[in-house]
């Protein structure tokens, strides 16, 4: 990890905090956008058929590693604990609150490395863009080939796909208090600026409020 004082989020140059402050009173926007900076992200690999590995890894992340494709396990609210996304039959993405990844990576290595597990800290590879509001799904549907019907891609579901041709990992959070959908978009750092600009443009017709995440 970079020295904390040198670390800049992928969208730091956009001045999102100032824009969020200016947008605070905005109430009629159909879409809310924000960057969740410095998400802790660990790539975990291992054999789901190996009981020893599954027990060790699941015990460390406080939930059973999901083996059903396109689903997640663990916490929706990262302050409560890590969230585990299914990426592939032998691969998971563990998402943590900012700063919690280093300790967890150490624990995971200690628990799972002896039974074929492999852990890589990929926190700086991607940033997370939060997209929510009544028209959030309409925005995604403009550039993503996934079936995003609310009954198909439900809260807790995740998928790797393309959004406006950028490779993303999409996670649907628990719905907002007003019943509207909320998504987290993991996007590689080098595509973050491009995707943010695309999202703002695609969401323009519904009204955009920049939020602090």
């Amino acid at each position, binding site marked *: 990890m970079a020295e904390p004082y040198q670390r800049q989020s992928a969208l730091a140059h956009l001045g999102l905090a100032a824009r969020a402050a200016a947008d605070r009173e905005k109430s009629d926007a159909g879409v809310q956008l924000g960057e969740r900076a410095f998400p802790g992200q660990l790539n975990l690999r291992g054999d789901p058929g190996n009981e020893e590995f599954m027990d060790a890894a699941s015990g460390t992340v406080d939930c059973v590693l999901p083996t059903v*494709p*396109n689903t997640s396990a663990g916490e929706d609210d990262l302050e409560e604990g890590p969230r585990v996304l299914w*990426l*592939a039959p032998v691969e998971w993405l563990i998402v943590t609150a900012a700063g919690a990844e280093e300790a967890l990576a150490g624990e995971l290595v200690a628990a799972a490395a002896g039974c074929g597990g492999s852990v890589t800290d990929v926190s700086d590879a991607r940033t997370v863009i939060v997209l929510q509001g009544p028209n959030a799904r309409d925005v995604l549907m403009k550039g993503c080939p*996934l079936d995003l019907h609310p009954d198909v891609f439900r809260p807790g579901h995740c*998928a790797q*796909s393309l959004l406006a041709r950028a490779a993303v990992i999409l996670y649907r959070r628990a719905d907002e208090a007003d019943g509207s959908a909320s998504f987290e978009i993991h996007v590689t750092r080098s595509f973050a600026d491009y995707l943010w600009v695309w999202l703002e443009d695609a969401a323009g017709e519904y009204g955009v409020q920049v939020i602090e995440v």
Partner: protein
Amino acid sequence: MLLITCPWCGPRDEIEFSCGGEAHITRPSEPEALTDEAWADYLFNRTNPKGPHAERWVHTHGCRRWFNVLRNTATNEILAVYEMGKPRPDGEGS
């Protein structure tokens, strides 16, 4: 645009995948024993049928797994999706 069913992720749009060419081509175990013609045949010659064709696909922007697809090259109909290492389900060809 094809809708391809990844054996793990389920039905996904073609843009998430890449095609790896004809499936079931086994590397000769003793290349040095082959004639130049037989080696060239292994390297370059493909069946190119009009009709069912077994090919390898990878879910590049999804789970990044390889698998086999039996696709009708004339109609683009996908007849079967099956794991690497499994025989061609219609019993045809190599």
